[in-house]
């Protein structure tokens, strides 16, 4: 493991865990269903956050 690879791993991890990479995943998925309308990043992030209105996710003590 080099410092560079460690850095790359940290960056990948942080992007994954914060959901910063979610939109890219959505774009990947969308490629499989091209007939669906493509959401912009703004629209997609709104949709993603608003889903939590219905499922806030419990936090433990």
């Amino acid at each position: 493991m080099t410092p560079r690879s460690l850095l790359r791993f940290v960056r990948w991890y942080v992007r994954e865990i914060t959901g910063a990479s979610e939109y890219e995943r959505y774009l990947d998925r969308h490629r499989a269903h091209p007939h669906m309308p493509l959401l912009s990043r703004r629209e997609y992030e709104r949709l993603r956050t608003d889903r939590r209105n219905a499922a806030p996710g419990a936090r433990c003590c």
Partner: protein
Amino acid sequence: MSRISSGGVKATPRSILIWAAVAVVGAVAWGVLALSRGERISAIWLVAAAVGSYAIAYRFYSRFIARRVLGVDDRRATPAERLDNGVDFHPTDRRVLLGHHFAAIAGAGPLVGPVLAAQMGYLPGTIWIIAGVILAGAVQDMVTLFFSMRRDGKSLGQMVREEMGPVGGAAALLAVFSIMIILLGVLALVVVNALAASPWGTFSIAMTIPIALFMGFYLRVLRPGRVMETTVIGVALLLLAIAGGGWIEGSPLADAFTLSPRTLVICLVVYGFFASVLPVWLLLAPRDYLSTFMKVGTIGLLAVGVLVAAPHLRNEAVTSFALDGDGPVFAGSLFPFVFITIACGALSGFHALIASGTTPKMIQKESQVRLIGYGAMLMESFVAVMALIAASVLEPGLYYAMNAPAGLLGTTAESAAAAVGELGFVITPDDLRAAAAAVQEQTVIARTGGAPTLAVGISEILSGIFGGSGFKAFWYHFAIMFEALFILTTVDAGTRVGRFMLQDTLGNIWKPIGRVSWKPGLWGTSALVVFAWGYFLYTGVSDPLGGINQLFPLFGIANQLLAAIALTLCTTILIKSGRLRWAWVTGIPLAWDAAVTLTASWQKVFDDDPKIGFFAQRDRYADALAAGKVLAPAKNLDQMHTVVVNSTVDGVLAAMFAALVLLVIGNAVVVCLRAVRSREPLPTAEAPYVESAIVVPSGLFASAAERREPAYAGAVPASAPAGRDGSGSGSAGTAEGPRAGDLDGGEAETGRAGTGTAEAP
């Protein structure tokens, strides 16, 4: 297609040597803890005993449970793979999911409980935290996670209904709801006790609201989806707010932020209501990012602090309160009350709600329940050990001056020092004033709830490394801030979850309430939930006997009884599916947990000692009231009334919780007897087998055997343009995620494209 087995590793001489060394280190540390009496020992021994035991338990016991008891099968597709919809079901990298799961289960609980339990000495708490997590807590989390995963991520309540029947299901649902209310009330009480009469703390916490609103606006409008950037800005503002609190403290504005407990209760209830009806993007989501970041950061900082500073424990190993049951922080003897007070960190029923919620819908491979279920709980347990250390480095005199109820201590440094002397510990009034001055608080007397004590302990440890004694006040308020921050996040989210449960249930009676978008229903149910926990919060601050002293045992009992329901469910499913001979794996923790909690409930309801039994307490105060007398610590007839009402409510609740759990266990016994008598295993609600196409490592790091797999080696194409993603999490990383060979398989997931996953349409 070849597939990676779930770690069929042969014992090599090297691995035998390594594990023998781990075992020796753990055993030596336990030996030091057990044998040292009367001298001060280093906290490092606690850490070594914990880490050594965790390592052994994870390597051997969790593997045994995964393979033999549960029979994890990596050829079987998980719900994340089968039902992948990119929304709630999507296969997520095990390390990312471990992070999410840990953030969801770990909160203020593992920090508060051990601090209160330090009243019994450091040893009982340590033993329970470590043995409890290995044999009960982590087992519950992992087994619940596994069974929920095999049932497409069904919730605890749904599983109880399907596997046991409607009676058990209804009892479980009612138990979950009422436990949630108590939990929110007690957690909010911890915040109130930490912020009362503290302008610094109140200002910093109040500032988190505009900061969160700003972050929400930034994420929604200015830079959608830039979570990292937003969090960095938020954390910077937060640190500014903590520093600003120090300035407020000395300014004329201090009076405006010096609030009484009652005012804080009103603020919290109003806040809780608005936080739960506002859209999540505005307050909850940004707050969640902030609190998760602070949580992980502070816990990491504390771990470094404990390891580097290696403080000595000033607490006794076992105090006399453990045996006599007359401790000032909470009444009752070691058995059962140490096991009630420390719930989170050893065995927490609340985790079963999370292990049967979002997490099972995101697991890539069945064998990963070991890392995510068992592993995350071990991490939480380690947090609890550190909290116990932080409380145990304090001078016992200071500890009791902070944690005994105000009714006992009085309000002045002199009266508190005298009361602590009565308890058998030494602290001078000047020491108390100096301790308050060091953290720039008006007083440290009777700051119950655990948070201030923990904060003093943390400031003691961290100021030894970063910044020196001049930074004590900063670290103290930093610790208060981070605890209050994630308690408030729990309160937000918990109020919402409680509201959904209520809407769901009431919707069966009157349809419109069930509609999530119908505003009056939403406001009404939110208000009901907020008033329910607000009631307990209010009784907590107005009770002359001390709210924490009264309510924390109730909270512990509730949490542990929820664990009993989860363990009952797990045991029932094991027996129903023909695994009677492995039923002890969850059956023994269940028996222990039921013994502990039912004994505690029994004592809380029926004990003759008014300090322990709620009804004995009620009778004592009611009799005095009838005679027109006022009993200390109550100061007038109104307070006498308060005590009578509170102890009645608490007693009824304790009895109700126990009754609900007995109902669930009784229901389970019937089902299990039927299963044992039947020749064939009874049908369970398990989802049918579907072949998996995902190939990923099972543990935190890819094993050598996993690396040798052709699918793994072939999983390199970083270019994989198709990007059709079987496993979800990795796909976005294809372009920029770690490449092959970088770091133990961080890359492997990215390339599963090579395994030809078919995506569900």
